[in-house]
């Protein structure tokens, strides 16, 4: 597979959220605002890139019998570095992401890509896979968050560091009488279900036409 395909496969064809169905907990939990989706997506992208590069570089050193604990140590280290750096230099983003930041350690996308891709491929391909999967995850989160926030709250929060540092687009009509259930946990499952159905239908339609799934 060409390097470009390694990069783009995670964005559409093997999107981690809608096709591979990994990382569902943060997907459902953090998508209440578009800004949270950006922050979570960027954090996952950084950790995924770092862990994929390290695990790929060490793939011939790490014995099979201890690969999972070794991967967890590498991933947890990167997550802790992200936490400390954000807390020190961008405390507003650190506060905004809250509990979801440490939970990146157990995000299935990161361990899944380490196990399924990085420990079998070169450093370059693993880095491209991480970038593609990270972008795909960020786009998926942003799409779900946009639907939930627009319909459930009548707003689009693009930037939200504090009450004085925020950029929120208010949608007339919807902001006065939003469908509040979409901001709740049930709404996350509903939106995820409809989007999954749409992407499955689209994949099958393309396959029936003889195109690539």
């Amino acid at each position: 597979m060409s390097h470009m395909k390694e990069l783009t496969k995670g964005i559409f064809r093997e999107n981690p959220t809608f096709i591979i169905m990994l990382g569902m907990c943060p997907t459902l939990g953090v998508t209440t605002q578009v800004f949270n989706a950006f922050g979570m997506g960027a954090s996952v992208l950084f950790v995924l890139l770092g862990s994929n590069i390290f695990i790929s570089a060490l793939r011939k050193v790490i014995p099979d019998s201890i690969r999972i604990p070794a991967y967890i140590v590498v991933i947890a280290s990167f997550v802790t570095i992200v936490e400390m750096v954000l807390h020190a230099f961008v405390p507003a983003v650190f506060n905004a992401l809250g509990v979801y930041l440490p939970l990146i350690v157990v995000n299935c996308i990161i361990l899944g890509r380490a196990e399924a891709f990085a420990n079998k491929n070169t450093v370059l391909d693993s880095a491209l896979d991480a970038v593609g999967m990270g972008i795909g995850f960020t786009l998926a989160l942003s799409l779900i968050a946009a639907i939930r926030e627009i319909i459930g709250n009548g707003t689009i929060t693009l930037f939200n560091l504090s009450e004085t540092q925020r950029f929120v687009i208010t949608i007339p009509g919807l902001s006065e009488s939003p469908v509040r259930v979409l901001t709740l946990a049930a709404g996350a499952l509903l939106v995820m279900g409809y989007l999954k159905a749409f992407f499955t239908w689209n994949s099958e339609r393309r396959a029936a036409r003889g195109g690539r799934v």
Partner: protein
Amino acid sequence: MKQYLKVAFILFAICAVSAILLAAVNQITAPYIEYNTMQTTAAALDAVSGGYTQGEHLEGNGDNINYIVPLYDGDELAGYILELSTSGYGGEIVMAASYRLDGTVISSKVMSDDETPGLGKNAEESWYMAMFEGLGGEGRPLPESKNDLADPSVVSGASVTFAGVSSAIRSGSEYVKSLGR
């Protein structure tokens, strides 16, 4: 046996490198984190002081009140700021709340929390904490549940956070009343 030792050494080496890397990053970031925490605390105390002069920090009750700061209007004691700890949905919530001597809430602000963005994290917003302002004194009880609010829908999906915040503010109010004038 040799194989086990080799595997153990590799895992040890990975852990050691990670620990050294984390220690280096911690060495760089720790002073900034400490400074940020002090700034956040000072800003929160200023924000809830209601224009009164802050006195010396005093010890709390050893339970959910971490420390107390007397508020003065000139030389006269006007109230107290309490740093309160409570439990939310995502873990501990630390907040500062100021009270008049009769237990009435002057102002309050969340200083740190791990609540869900968009739901429990709304407690960081000024409109959220404004729901408690002016309450807690004689004949003006603080809300015990979201059903006591004029519009309970504003805390929809975050009942646990609201219960934690309101119980902390109520206990702070009772504590200030117990201090007397």
